[in-house]
């Protein structure tokens, strides 16, 4: 009886020590779920979800503080992917957070810009170059189309222009099944 108790205690101690060691040795930094959610989010960093950037929103989703349908740039497809990942039901985009728009980039009207640097400070991805009292311009390739620079501009010289197809970005369309003809 006593031997059995001792053996069990010893086994429990050894296993406990092992587990304790493993939890220190293989400690996972950060929440891997947040990483996965962050990878799905479009990284527009627009803040339309109500969080200051995509990562904070990902953290909020992971902790259950935010819903999955608050990201307009991600659109329906993004919501579907999040629903798949988290095993939740699909919901349509929440209206209070905005509507899905075609991808666009900010364009600064060079004749109107006064060089106030407010848009440069607002840009979350440093995609606007310029200096005080110098003409600013948007690096189109880096612009995420978040629209955060539009509101601060005191002279309203920033416009969002939809991205047009080029030969490198043109896509073959989904083959259309002609029901009328088929009938």
């Amino acid at each position, binding site marked *: 009886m006593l031997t059995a108790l001792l053996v069990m205690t010893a086994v429990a101690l050894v296993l406990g020590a092992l587990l304790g060691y493993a939890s220190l040795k293989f400690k996972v930094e950060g929440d891997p779920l947040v990483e996965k959610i962050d990878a799905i*989010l*479009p990284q527009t960093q627009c803040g339309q979800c109500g969080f200051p950037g995509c990562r904070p929103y990902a953290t909020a989703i992971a902790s259950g503080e935010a819903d999955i349908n608050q990201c307009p740039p991600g659109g329906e497809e993004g919501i579907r992917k999040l629903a798949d990942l988290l095993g939740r039901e699909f919901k349509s985009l929440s209206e209070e957070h905005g509507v899905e728009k075609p991808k666009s980039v900010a364009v600064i009207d060079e004749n109107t810009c006064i060089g106030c640097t407010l848009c440069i400070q607002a*840009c979350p*991805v440093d995609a606007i170059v310029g200096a005080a009292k110098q003409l600013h311009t948007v690096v189109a390739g880096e612009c995420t189309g978040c629209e955060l620079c539009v509101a601060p501009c005191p002279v309203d010289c920033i416009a969002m222009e939809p991205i047009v197809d080029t*030969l490198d970005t043109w896509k073959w369309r989904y*083959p259309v099944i002609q029901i009328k003809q088929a009938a």
Partner: protein
Amino acid sequence: MLRKLFKFHGGVKPQTNKTESTTQPIAQVPLPDRLVIPLHQAVGGHPRPLVAPGDKVFKGQRIGGADGSLSSAVHASTSGIVHDVVPALMPHTSGLTTLSVIIEPDGEDRWGELDKVNYRRTPPDELRDFLRDAGVVGLGGAVFPSYAKLKPGKEGRLKTLVINGAECEPFITCDDLLMRERAADMLKGIVAMRHMLQAEEVLIGIEDNKPEAVAAVQAAIAASGQSGIEAVAIPTRYPAGGAKQLIRVLTGIEVPHGRRSTDFGVQCFNVGTAYSIYEALELGRPLISRVVTVAGNVDRPRNYEVLIGTPMDHVVRQSGARPDSDRYIMGGPMMGVRLPAFGVPVVKATNCILVGSPALFPPPPPEMPCIRCGECAKACPADLAPFEMYWFSRSKNFGKAQEYHLFDCIECGCCSFVCPSHIPLVDYFRFSKSEIWARERDKEASDAARDRFEFKNFRQEREKQEKAEKLAAKAAATREKVAAEGQAGTTSAAAETPDVAAKPAAPSAEDTKRALIAAAMEKARQQKAQVAPKNTEQLSTETQADIAAIEARRAAAATPPTPDA
């Protein structure tokens, strides 16, 4: 010696429709009123224009410089005046425009200065640069820059150089006619390529439905006295003209997924490319024209030597276009792409202008559900399972489609051809491929945005910290300075009144603060006093009077009103 030939998997035997256009020799097309030469004519890069509107150009003058590693130069096809450099509709299904040089021919068709090169004495790198600047690209339809392929593999020499004269697609006969009429010159190009690649043997694969071409090439080889070059008639079976399929038939080598034929010592070029390499090296003529088949719904199907940039409807008019024509297809009926307009220019990729009409190409029967019969898998020359890829493409499950090696699909159209349910399988695969590419681009962009966002946050944090540190350091320095001054003051005072010296010398924090404030106020007062009004010379008496009045008002406002006033 009879060569052992191999078979590739699958393939189909569509009606070839080649006889009508081979009855006549290659004809010249009269100069059109206007040439529209797109600058983007190779797989990679968008060449920058080297001419401006109003410039006079000679035939063969470079008008677009190669841009990047997979790009190739573009040349004026005839002499004339550059009318404009603007985006113009290009021969592509998308109907998009691309920057093009529009030339108004002067009718003289005068060549500029031509540089020839002796390929036997030129180092390979220079030779490749020469071919890049001569705009030589693969004329089989993929327009891959030839200079990039003319590199011997890691071993420094190639085993087999395969020359593709199979021309398996129905209606197209431009390579056939080229081989019949220009075999000797084409062979010179092949010899040059063989020299560049140090190839042991050269195999020219020609489908056996072109006996005249086989005979012409064999005669040219015999006349040239070259050894190790052989023209091989291969069984007619679509798509024997696919690079991997032709290599399989001629050498038995099956190039596996993710590898290149050069890994196995084989490289493949089109016969038209060989001819344009001959023109570039031996005549110094850049690639400014090509042989184009006009077939389909025309009165006289024929092959033409067409200047790059000639509007397609101008070429078709020579063959007698019929009024019921409703579309032009660039390429053949299997792989060709429908063009957005009749007036798009002939480019380096145009091997055939297939004129379509509702009678010739009736609309496809309605698509029916896939019954998973497996006919497509039997016909697939790339050994894929099209019905699986179709299923996943249709449901937009692109990851799965890629698992079935979607990107090994050569879009030959065999699967769509045999499908009993008339499913446009290739359309689904093209859709899937471009979606996957778009997603990869988006992923890259979002990763870059994440990095930039994180860096911006880091930078702001760092700047805040640096500013705080700087302020703290400055405050500490001032405090020390004031403390030192205060100490000096107390010691000098102590010298005069010995009883005060008994008090502790260190001033309290309150005193330091007060001293700081006093110092700052003093500084501000001094600065204010230093400010002198500008532009005070040469004033009119009126202005001076105004100023005096303002000053008086200011002084009155500044003096506090006396209590009894």
